[in-house]
C-alpha cells in the first residue's frame, strides 16, 4: 500500500500519463497541411481527423507523401502551411483552437485539458509535452544499448525530473531510486508484453528484425503517449510476425485505449485492424472513411493500379477483379 502511494505522483499528474478524452472524441485534427520542398509539393492541403481510441491508417502508393505527413505531425518537419491540433482531455478544448492560433503560443492548458499546435513545436516537445510517440520506417533503436536501457531512455524526461536534473541523482537520493525502480518495472512490463523479457539484458542490435520492430513499439509506448504513430510497422515482417503485430496493436488499443496512427503498405494489416482509413496520392487525400468504404472506392483502386479513374473498370476487367 505504501509503495503504491509513493509511486502515485509518477503515475498521474504532470509527469505521468496525460489526461485523455473519451473514446470517439477528436484527438488529432490536421487542417490544410501543405509541405513544399523547393518546387515539389509533397503534401497538398491535406485535412483529416483521428479519433480517440481508434486505429487510423494512412495509406497510399509509394511517394504519396505519407511519411512527410508523419514527419510534420511529429515535428521533424516544419509544415509550409496548415495547422495540426492535438487535444488532451475533454473535447470542449477544441473551441479554443482559433484563439490559441491567434495568440501565437504553442499550447494552452485549461481545466478541461490541454490543446497543442504541433506545427509550432520542436520534435522533442511533440513527444515530451503533446505526448505523440513515433517509430520509424527503418528501425531506429539504440543498437549498442540493452533492451532495458532502450526503454529507460524512453522515460528520460520523467527520470530527469526525478533525478533533480542530475543534481540529486548524483547523490543517489531515495526518491530518485524509487523513480528508477518504477521505470524499470514499467520497462519490464512492456518487455513482457512484446515477448522479449528473456532478452532484457541483451543489446538491441542483436535482436532479429521482427523483434526489433516490436521493441521499437514498446519503446514508443514507454513515453506515455496519447497518440502512437507507427511508420510501416509491418514492413519486412513475415506473415506470422505480421499477424502477431496485428494482435499487439489491437491489444494496445483495447487495453490502454491508445489511439494509433499508422502508415502501412500491407493491406491485410490495414483492412484487418484499422477503424478509419485515409488514402493519399500525390500528396492529396483521395479517400477517407471506414476500411470497407475505402476498399471499394474506384479512386483508390485507380491510384493503386496506377491508372486514370475512368480506366478503372477496363483494367479491372483485364486483370479479372
Amino acid at each position, binding site marked *: 500500500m505504501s509503495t503504491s502511494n509513493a509511486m502515485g505522483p509518477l503515475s498521474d499528474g504532470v509527469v505521468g500519463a496525460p489526461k485523455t478524452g473519451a473514446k470517439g472524441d477528436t484527438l488529432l485534427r490536421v487542417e490544410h497541411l501543405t509541405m513544399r520542398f523547393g518546387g515539389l509539393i509533397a503534401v497538398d492541403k491535406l485535412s483529416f481527423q483521428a479519433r480517440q481510441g481508434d486505429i487510423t491508417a494512412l495509406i497510399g502508393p509509394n511517394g504519396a507523401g505519407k511519411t512527410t505527413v508523419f514527419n510534420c505531425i*511529429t515535428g*521533424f518537419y516544419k509544415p509550409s502551411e496548415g495547422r495540426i491540433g492535438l487535444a488532451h482531455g475533454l473535447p470542449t478544448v477544441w473551441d479554443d483552437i482559433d484563439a490559441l492560433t491567434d495568440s501565437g503560443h504553442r499550447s494552452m492548458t485549461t481545466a478541461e485539458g490541454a490543446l497543442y499546435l504541433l506545427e509550432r513545436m520542436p*520534435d*522533442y*516537445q511533440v*513527444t*515530451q509535452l503533446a505526448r505523440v*510517440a*513515433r*517509430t*520509424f520506417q527503418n528501425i*531506429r*533503436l*539504440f*543498437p*549498442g*544499448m*540493452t533492451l*532495458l*536501457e532502450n526503454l*529507460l*531512455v*524512453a522515460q*528520460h*524526461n520523467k*527520470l*530527469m525530473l526525478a*533525478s533533480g536534473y*542530475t543534481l540529486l*541523482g*548524483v547523490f*543517489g537520493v531515495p526518491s530518485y531510486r524509487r523513480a*528508477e525502480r518504477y521505470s*524499470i518495472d514499467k520497462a*519490464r512490463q512492456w518487455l513482457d508484453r512484446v515477448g522479449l523479457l528473456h532478452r*532484457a*539484458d*541483451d*543489446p538491441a*542490435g*542483436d535482436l532479429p528484425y521482427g523483434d526489433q520492430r516490436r521493441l521499437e513499439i514498446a*519503446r*514508443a509506448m514507454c*513515453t506515455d503517449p496519447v497518440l502512437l504513430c507507427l511508420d510501416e510497422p509491418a514492413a519486412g515482417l513475415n506473415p506470422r510476425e505480421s499477424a502477431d503485430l496485428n494482435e499487439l496493436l489491437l491489444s494496445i488499443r483495447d487495453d490502454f485505449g491508445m489511439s494509433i496512427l499508422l502508415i502501412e503498405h500491407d493491406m491485410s494489416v490495414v483492412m484487418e485492424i484499422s477503424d478509419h482509413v485515409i488514402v493519399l496520392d500525390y500528396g492529396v487525400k483521395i479517400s477517407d472513411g471506414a476500411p470497407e468504404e475505402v476498399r471499394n472506392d474506384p479512386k483508390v483502386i485507380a491510384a493503386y493500379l496506377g491508372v486514370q479513374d475512368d480506366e478503372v473498370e477496363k483494367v479491372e476487367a483485364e486483370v479479372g477483379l
Partner: protein
Amino acid sequence: MKQETTVKGSNALAAVRDAAISALISLGLFLPLVGFETIVNIRNELTLDTRWPLLFTMVALVFVGRLAYSLFAAPRLAQRKQHAAAAPAWLGTIGKWFVPFAIGFVIVYPVLVLSTAGFGGALKWVDNFGIQILIYVMLGWGLNIVVGLAGLLDLGYVAFYAVGAYSYALLAKEFGFSFWLLLPLAGIMASFWGVLLGFPVLRLRGDYLAIVTLAFGEIIRVVLINWVDFTNGYAGISGIPRPTFFGIPFTAGDDGFAATFGLEFSPIYRTIFLYYVILALAFLTAFVTVRLRRLPVGRAWEALREDEVACRSLGVNTTNTKLTAFSIGAMFGGFAGSFFAARQGFISPESFTFIESATIVAIVVLGGMGSQIGVAVAAVVMIGGTEIMRELNFLRQIFGESFDPTQYRMLIFGFAMVVIMVFRPRGFVSTRQPTVFLKERKTISSDLVGEGHG
C-alpha cells in the same frame, strides 16, 4: 601439389609488388625529408646537401620489411585471428583484479618510489611519471565524456585546459585566492566556455563539428598570445602561487611544511602532495563519470551517440544533452588546467597547442571510446612512453653521442598508434558495460556500439 605451388608463386609475386609499391611511397616521402639536408657552412650560408646512401638504405629497409611482413607475418596473423574467437578465461580473471590492483598501486606509488629510489631519485619518478601521467588520465577521462559517451568529436579540448590554467593563474596572482577556492572556480569557468562553444556548434555533426572545435582551440590560444595586457602574451605568466598544505607552504622557511612537521626540507614533499591532489581529482572524475552514466543524463549521452534522431523522437532534448556533455567535460578539463598551473608555477600559450588536443583525443581513441580503464591504460602507455624515451640513454652508446632519443618521440608515438589500430581497431577496451540490468550484466560487443556522428 602443383596447384599449391602456383598459388604460393602468385602470393610471392603479389607480395613483391606490394613491397615495391610501399618502397615507392617511402621514396616519395623520404626524398624531401631524408634525401636532402640543409647545412649552414662556415660562412653562415645555407647549403643543400644530398644523402643518397641513407635514403636508399631506408627505402630498401621498407621494401624488405614489407616483403617479410606479407610473406611470413600476415598469413600467421590471419590464422591466429581465426583461432582467437573466444577470449581466454585468464583474461577475465585479470580483468576482475586489475582495477583494485591498479587503484592500490597508484595510492602507494610515491611510497614505493621513495623506498626504492631514495629522496633524490624519487622526485623525477613522482613528478614526470606520476603527476604527468595522472594529468593526462584526468584529461582523457574528461574528454571521454564528450567523445566516448556523447559521441561528439572535440578536437579543441585543450582550450578548456587553457581556460582552467589561466583562470587559476590570473585570479591567484591578482587577488591571492587560494588553490582550493580557485579549483572549483576554474572548473565553472571552463564549463561556461564549454557551453559557449557548445551553442554555435550544436547543429554541426561529425567532421564539421571536429573542424569547428579545432578552430575554437586555436582561437583561445591565439587570444592568449595576442591579448598581451591580460595574459602577458608569449612570455606567459610566471610566479603563480603554489598550493599549500592546508595553509602551510612547502618552503624551506621556519613556517614551511618540513619545519612544521620536524622533517628535513626537501622538494619531494610538495611533489608528493601534488601527486595526491591530482590523484584525488582523477578519482573524482572517474567517480562522477561512473555515476553520471547510470543517471538519465548519462544514458541520454550514450543514446545520442547511438542515434540522435531516435533520441528526439523519445522526447530527449538533444540540445541540452549535448550542452551538458560539453560543459561537464570542459569542467574536468578546467580542473586539470588549474592543477597544471599550480604545479608548474608558470604557464604560457606554448603549453596549449593543438598537439595537446591531439594527444588527449589519441588517448581516448586508443583506450577505447567510453571505457575508463582503457583510457587510463592508454594515458600510461602514451605519456609514460614519451617520458621513458628521455631515460633511454643507453641508446647513445649504440647510435653515437649525438643521438637524442626524445627526437624520435613522435615517430615512435605514431608507430605505436598504427600498431594498436591494426590489432585493436576500437581501442584497448572496446566493449561496453550496460548501465542497468534485470538479471545479469552482459558485456556488449564493440560491433554493436555506435561511434557517434557528431
